[in-house]
């Protein structure tokens, strides 16, 4: 579904991605693990078109989308739930969902989808008229996911959905990730919560300092070893 | 020759005005109060030499002090607000000062002449230079000596801890605060220093033009004050000088042969410069390569 080939993205002179290659297969949950500053968010923004890669190609269902605008990429069926959620704080929950369907012209269908979101996320229904900025972190995360789903994506990118949330809510979020996947949405997930990520993922990658350092199925490496590699910096010792 | 010396005088005073805004901009504040501080400096210095018969340098020092103290007093309330609100608050200040001098009469007899500020008619007969036999060359050299001293002081400050503190506040107030920097103290100090420099600029201005009036110290002048450092770049004091040369030397004088069209180009060129060099003519990268060019180490 998503095919990233050797991309390089830089801020000024600093290369945040130094040639990243990975793949998210259709209908699966793929997970990217790695420490802070590894370049995970940069990768997500590069794929979604917010940042322009200097080199490499990104393909979505076989079509080259490298360097296209975020609007064009959303239109092709890719949605990103950004790190820190980034809801529209001064808009109501309902308006946030409306904004998520910005590119769609089928207003009747949009209304149906909004109702679907309320069924999937009952908390959002309760707070439909409330300003998004006043929601709790967990509610904001659900809103961000629902907003992304409003564009009816084929693939959903999620950047650290569990960041700063209470364990119970994290469980809830991952339950929803599993459900979405069962409904046929391909999911590409960036996580720091290794335990939860390995529980849902079909495939995972490890990333360190702008490079992918490991790729495999969960179970191929013990959880401890993943944590060891991802967060305690094995590559640094090698050098 | 006198023409070029005259131009040098103008450029010197405008450099000082630009530097006064430069200090404040370092802390991330856009102040349009500099024209007001300059007006205060101009009137105070001129009143001291003309009405009280003081020597010029003493008058300049006092003018600078008065403008600086005013800036400090205004800074405390004004710097509670940011961004556009600070811009408007400082516009209000400059207008208040201008209108104060519009309504300010204080004349005394000297010989058969009435001298001193006279409201809308302005303050004429500031004849310190001709009365003391200063030629245009003397005046130009004197002004640029002052400019050089102020620039050296600021350049030294930029490289010292004080400069780093100012920049830290300018870049990220919250981060600076969490490092234990007292935001109010830093901003008010910068405002005070800026006011003092603008006061000197005003004092010099009053004496080389010999006639000042409220309409010299408008929002437009305040806009020029911030235009110099922004156009020139905030990474060093030299940016301000470069912008003064660009505007006063090139746009105002250099393009005189274009006649009416010069004024049109003036605005257009500012727009163009901001498009191609949004961080100023001498931005950080240019300054770095200039330093390399002159064989000095990055400092």
């Amino acid at each position, binding site marked *: 579904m998503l095919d990233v080939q050797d991309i390089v993205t830089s801020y000024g002179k600093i290369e945040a991605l130094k040639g990243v290659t990975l793949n998210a297969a259709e209908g699966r949950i793929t997970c990217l693990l790695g420490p802070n500053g590894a370049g995970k968010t940069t990768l997500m923004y590069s794929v979604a078109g917010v940042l322009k890669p200097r080199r490499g190609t990104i393909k979505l269902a076989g079509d080259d989308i490298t360097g296209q605008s975020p*609007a064009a990429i959303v239109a092709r069926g890719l949605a990103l739930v950004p790190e820190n959620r*980034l809801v529209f704080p001064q808009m109501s929950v309902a308006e946030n969902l409306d*904004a998520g369907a910005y590119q769609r012209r089928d207003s009747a269908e949009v209304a149906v989808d909004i109702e679907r979101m309320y069924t999937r996320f009952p908390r959002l229904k309760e707070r439909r008229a409330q300003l998004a900025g006043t929601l709790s972190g967990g509610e904001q995360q659900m809103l961000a996911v629902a907003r*992304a789903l409003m564009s009816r994506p084929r693939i959903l990118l999620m950047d650290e959905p569990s960041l700063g949330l209470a364990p119970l809510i994290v469980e809830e979020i991952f339950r929803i990730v599993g459900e979405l996947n069962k409904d046929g949405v391909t999911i590409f997930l960036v996580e720091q919560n290794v335990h939860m990520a390995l529980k849902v993922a079909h495939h995972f990658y490890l990333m360190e300092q702008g490079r992918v350092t490991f790729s495999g199925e969960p179970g191929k490496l013990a959880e401890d070893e993943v944590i060891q590699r991802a967060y305690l910096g094995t590559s640094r010792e090698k050098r | 020759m006198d023409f070029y010396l005259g131009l040098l005088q103008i450029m010197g005073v405008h450099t000082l005005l630009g530097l006064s805004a430069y200090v404040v901009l370092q802390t991330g504040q856009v102040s349009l109060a500099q024209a007001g501080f300059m007006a205060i400096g101009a009137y105070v210095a001129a009143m001291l030499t003309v009405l009280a018969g003081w020597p010029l340098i003493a008058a300049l020092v006092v003018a600078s002090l008065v403008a600086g103290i005013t800036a400090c007093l205004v800074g405390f309330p004004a710097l509670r607000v940011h961004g556009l609100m600070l811009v408007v608050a400082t516009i209000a200040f400059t207008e208040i000062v201008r*209108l104060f001098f519009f309504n300010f009469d204080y004349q005394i007899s000297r010989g058969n002449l009435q001298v001193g500020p006279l409201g809308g008619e302005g303050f004429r007969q500031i004849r310190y230079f001709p009365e003391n036999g200063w030629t245009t060359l003397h005046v130009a050299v004197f002004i640029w000596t002052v400019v050089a001293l102020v620039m050296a002081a600021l350049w030294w400050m930029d490289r010292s801890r004080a400069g780093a503190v100012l920049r830290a506040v300018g870049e990220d107030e919250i981060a600076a605060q969490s490092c234990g920097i007292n935001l109010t103290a830093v901003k008010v100090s910068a405002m005070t220093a800026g006011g003092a420099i603008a006061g000197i600029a005003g004092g010099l201005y009053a004496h080389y033009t010999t006639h000042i009036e409220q309409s010299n110290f408008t*929002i437009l002048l305040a806009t020029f004050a911030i235009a110099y450092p*922004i156009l020139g770049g905030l990474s060093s004091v030299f940016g301000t000088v470069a912008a003064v040369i660009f505007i006063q030397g090139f746009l105002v004088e250099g393009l005189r042969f274009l006649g009416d069209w010069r004024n049109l180009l003036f*605005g257009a060129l500012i727009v163009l410069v901001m498009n191609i060099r949004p961080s100023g003519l001498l931005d950080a990268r240019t300054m770095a390569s200039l330093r390399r060019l002159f064989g000095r180490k990055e400092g």
Partner: protein
Amino acid sequence: MLLVDLAQSILDGVLFGATYALIGIGFTLVFGVMHKINMAYAAASVGGAYAALRLITLIGGPAWASLLIAAAVGGLFGLFIYWLCFRFIPLSNPLATLMSTVGMFLLAEEIIVHTTDGMPQNYPVVVGGILHLGEFMIRGDLVFVFACAILAMLILLYLLYRTKLGTATRAVSQQPIAAQLVGIRINQVNALTFVVTGMLGGFAGALIGSAVGLLSPLLVVPLTIKGLIVTVIGGLGSIPGAIIAGLLVGMAENVFQYFRGVTERDIYVMLLLFIFLVFRPGGIFSTTVKRD
């Protein structure tokens, strides 16, 4: 007699304040959406009015048509300003766009001076008439300006809160990255904001020209300052706030002039503004203070 004069003076001031309100709406809208100051706004508005006056004297037509022409030209100017002063300048650098619009301000003012030799131009009356209410006189044209300001507010609020463009505009202003991620083209939305505010500006410029009776480059600086004042007093980005602030400033001017004379009038207006800003930085409709 004295009280009647004072009351009439307040009434005149409030009514004249409608012109400040109308110009203030555009300033506040650009600020609300882009978090940027467009210093060239009033200059472009007056420029639009000039162009309309030229056209209407050239091709003939009723005076009210000049309002529509001015709006169209103003929209075009808005687009120009966006392209020349915002589009290619990093928005993370507020000083650069401040300066580029100052440059544009000087350019627009100079074009006006250049094409008219700086001469004041007579602007025809669009809506005339004086209403007499007992002792009091009310200028019909200023009532019309006020009505237009209210109408403009209603249209803008409708656009902002009831249309897709409005949703996009608010999304961009609140969270630009997320706006991109839901498929909103930021540049397009910003350009449209400038077109809409530009149209409003041209319309306002023509209406102010008609109320003053004249167009002159002398209008540009005071209108710019009034626009900025109204924006901050009304609360950054608040359209109803801008209208109330406009009327307040107009009233304050006339009251101070009545009591303190014309030479001291603006000292007190500015002093009031300064105090207001420092002690109520959120404006009349104090909301959360936004970033700039």
